[in-house]
Each structure stands twice: as C-alpha cells, then as structure tokens.
C-alpha cells in the first residue's frame, strides 16, 4: 500500500492547492508547511495497523542493488539538468516558476493567447510540485525540480517490486526483473532526456495499479486503483483517459466477481478521480484554456504517415531494442494472470493511436515527438506483466506478502 499511499497523498495535496486557488488564497510557504503537516498527521492517524515492526524486505538482492545503481545514475545526471527534457524549459518549468512567483495557479497567464505553447489546458500537479518545492526551498532551482523525476522513478521501482512479490515469482525473476526494469528505464531516461518529464508520473500511475490488477478485486485494491487513476488525471492530459480506463477495468472486474453492480466499488473508484477531474475541467472551461488541437475528425488516410513513424519510434536508438515491448500487450491478453494489466496497456495505446488519427496537427512530427514517451508510460508495467505471465506454474513461489496495494 505504500506506493498507493504516496500517490494518495500527492492527489490530496493537489486537490487542496486547487481549493486554495478557487478560494483565492495564495500559496504561502507557511500555509504549505501546515498543509503537509496536516496530511502527514492524517496519514499517521489512519495508517494501516502493521502486524509487526516495519523493516526492510528480507529478500533484498543483487537485482535491487542494480536497480539502486541505475536510479542513482539517472538521478545524479538529472541534477545537472543536462538530461532534462526540453519540455521542462518550454512549459513544465515555466509554469512551475510562474506559479511560485505568483503563489498560485496563474490562470490569466495560462489564458494569454500566445501561451497555447505551454499546454494551458494540462492538469497542473507537476507545476504545483515544482512551485511548492520552490516556495519551500526559497527559490526555483532546476536541480531541485529534477529530483522529482528521481522520486517518481524510485516509487515506480517500489511498485514493480510489490507487484512481483505479490505475484509470488521466484527469486531470480524478482531480482532480474528489478534490474532489467531499472536499467531499461534508466537508459531511456538518460538517452531520451526524460529528467523533469511528466511521463514518469503516468508510468508510475500505471505501475501503482498493477498489484491490485493482479489479484482479485478488493476494497483496498479499488482504492489503490482509484488513487493511481486520480494521480494520472492530475499529471497530464492523457492521464484523464488513462484514469477512465483504470476505473473501467477495475469496475468490470468487480462486476465479474460479484455478478452484480457493485455500487460501493463504483464510489471508491469514482470519487478520487472525480475530485481531480471535475475541478480541472471546470477551471479549464471557465478560463478558456481548452485547446482546439486536442481533437478533430478521424482521418484513416493518416495511416500512411502513422505507420512509418511508429516503426521509427519503436526502433529508436534510445530504446536499445526494448521499444518492441510495446507489442506485448496483445499476447499478454491471453494470460489470465495479467489480462487486466495487458488490457489497460492495450487500451491506452489504442487511445494514443486514435489521437494520432484525429488531432489536427502535423501527424508525422506528432508521432515522432510524442510516441517514444507514450511508450515509456506503459512499457514498465508491460515488462512486469511479462515476467509474471511467463513465471512457470507449480514452481515453489518466492515469499509473497499480504496484498501489496
């Protein structure tokens, strides 16, 4: 539950900042500290009662060490800003610095006609985190902002570990899986300049949903999926359809398990997402931020442009061959163990394709500039699902703990 709990905390923080904006209350550093202390207090008060003193997992091994090495290497380079995504300078960082300067979401700034370039309709969690970091540390420093990517990478690895342990894979699979995932993401993160990118958050949201999607639906799992979905919806605009997919898949699983409409599960799944999406949408409409480039008419003739561009992105040098993992959701759908994860990945990729067939922008350039990062959002979960799906049945499983969240 730890990764889900972290995402829940970030979602609640985002909702509180949105509330402050609506009420016209500036984000004073002292107020932010009070909010964070309050959230921490609530988390402590309502923490799950652990049966024993928390300690490091007893099965740490070589793979975890390799993962830590990859995480450290990526993060150290990120701190130099040399591997920062250009979008950090073009819009994420601009928004974060601006929000810090005015101590709030500057909707008037976002609504300026030339600021179509900064995706004014995007959800604002990442710029809010940048702004809060700047306000609490006394200034907007790039290195501090880049650290967030290290945090998201670490949480993603923690989520992957939880999923592999919960699935009861053997020790070699767990260690090799951790090492493989961290090295692939670290290599792409460095080579494709992903420090400061919001795509880490979407990848993290998908991974946080993997443990509950790998086990029979239960209330704790519903909440974990709900907060993963809400976190995605607060992070990037493609996080909104992802949130819908996560909620839909978990709801369908609940219906299949209970053979009736589970209203409580629907509420558990829907409320956190609604708490994020509704205010975002209302503010975007109210301030005229929604962009016409988000959608258009379906044009099948674009396949001639999309196909070659997709081929090029899957073969991108920075993927070092691992881009082909994006094709795995299809065969993974045939594995009952990981079908829900494969379904989420496949549906999200289908949605991305739909956007390419409809968005009124330069299609070829759009695919080349965005699809590598859209692949990055799902490949971590796909790799974990592939390891779980190919785990031989009947082997003595590794130690698996209580539901990992």
């Amino acid at each position, binding site marked *: 539950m730890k990764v889900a709990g972290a995402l829940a905390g970030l979602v609640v923080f985002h909702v509180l900042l949105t509330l402050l904006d609506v009420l016209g209350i500036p984000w004073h550093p002292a107020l932010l500290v009070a909010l964070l202390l309050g959230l921490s207090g609530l988390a402590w008060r309502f923490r799950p009662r652990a049966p024993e003193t928390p300690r490091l997992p007893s099965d740490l091994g070589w793979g975890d060490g*390799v993962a830590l090495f*990859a995480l450290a*290497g990526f993060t150290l*380079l990120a701190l*130099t*800003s*040399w*591997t*920062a995504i*250009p979008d950090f*300078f*073009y*819009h994420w*960082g*601009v928004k974060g*610095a*601006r929000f*810090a*300067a005015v101590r709030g979401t500057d909707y008037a*700034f976002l609504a*300026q*006609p*030339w600021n179509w*370039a*900064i995706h004014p309709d995007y959800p604002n969690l990442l710029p809010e985190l940048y702004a809060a970091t700047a306000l609490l540390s006394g200034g*907007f420093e*790039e290195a501090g902002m880049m650290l967030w990517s290290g945090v998201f990478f670490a949480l993603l690895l923690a989520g992957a570990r939880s999923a592999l342990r919960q699935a009861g894979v053997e020790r*070699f*699979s767990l260690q*090799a*899986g951790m*090492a*493989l995932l961290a*090295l*692939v993401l*670290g*290599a*792409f993160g*460095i*080579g494709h*300049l992903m420090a400061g990118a919001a795509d880490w958050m979407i990848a993290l949201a998908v991974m946080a949903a993997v443990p509950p999607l790998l086990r029979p639906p239960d209330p704790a799992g519903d909440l974990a999926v709900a907060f993963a979905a809400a976190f995605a919806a607060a992070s990037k605009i493609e996080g909104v359809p992802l949130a819908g997919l996560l909620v839909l898949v978990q709801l369908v699983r609940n219906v299949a398990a209970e053979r009736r409409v589970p209203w409580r599960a629907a509420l558990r799944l829907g409320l956190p997402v609604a708490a994020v999406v509704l205010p975002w949408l209302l503010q975007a409409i109210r301030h005229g931020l929604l962009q016409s480039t988000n959608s258009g008419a379906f044009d099948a003739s674009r396949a001639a442009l999309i196909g070659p561009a997709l081929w090029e992105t899957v073969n991108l040098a*920075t993927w*070092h*061959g*691992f881009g082909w993992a994006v094709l795995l959701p299809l065969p993974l759908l045939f594995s009952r163990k990981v079908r829900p994860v494969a379904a989420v990945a496949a549906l999200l990729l289908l949605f991305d394709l739909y956007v390419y067939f409809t968005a009124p922008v330069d299609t070829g350039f759009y695919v080349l500039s965005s699809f590598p990062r859209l692949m990055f959002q799902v490949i971590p979960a796909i790799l974990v699902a592939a*390891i779980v799906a*190919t785990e*031989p049945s009947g082997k003595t499983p590794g130690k698996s703990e209580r539901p990992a969240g």
Partner: protein
Amino acid sequence: MLRKTILGFALAGAALAFLAEMGRAVGEYDRRERRIGGRPEEWRAGMPQVARLERCLAGVRATVPAGSVVAFESPAPDGARFFAWRWAAYLLPEYDVAPLSDSRTADAAQYLVTYAVRVEDPRIELIRRLPGCRLYRVRRP
C-alpha cells in the same frame, strides 16, 4: 531454463545500454561549454548559448516591473525562433514573454527585448542596452 536465458540476455543488453547512455551523457556534459554552435531547438542547460541569453535577460529584471508583457525577438529562422522564445520565457517566468511574430503581441506588449537582432519601429523607444540585446518600451497613444 529458456526463460532464464532470455531474461539473462535481456538483462545483459539493458546493462550495456545503460552504461552506454551514462557514458555518452557524462562525456557530452563535460564538453557542454565547447558546444558553441547549435540551433535553439538543440540548446540544453549549461550550454554557452543559454548562458549568453541569460546574461542578456538578467538586465530586464532591473528595469521592467514584474508581471509586464514583454515581447521577444531573435534572429533565428522561423522554426528555431519558437524555441529561442520558449527559452526566454523560461528565464523570465515573472513576466508574460510573448513572441513578436504573434499578431496579438503588438496590442499587448509593454516592452520589447531584441536578442542579437535590430528592430526598427516608430512605436518603440530604446531604454537600455544589455549584453547581447536591447530593451525597448512600447509607446502607447
């Protein structure tokens, strides 16, 4: 056994990939101050081109009130000009930095920064020469 073999090969490939990317990035970072060419879309933090722009824009803060609409112009060709503008906006987050090429900027801009390019217009009044650029006030009737 086959599964472990495949996983092992994948792991070896990923390790080589990671080390290659780390090595390339560290080498590029070490040489960043010698990267004197490059169009704005190729700029990265720490490159001399960004430092030059930063020096130019540092003087804007001393003169222009925060929150002002500042138009920006650079000599880069059309596509690259967009990226130069985005870097200027990042370096001046407390201002509304608008591209001079946008038709809506003319009505809103209160100041103009020209970076390595001269602009002649009767509506602008030079108020300060900065390192590598000029700061103008836009006259309103």
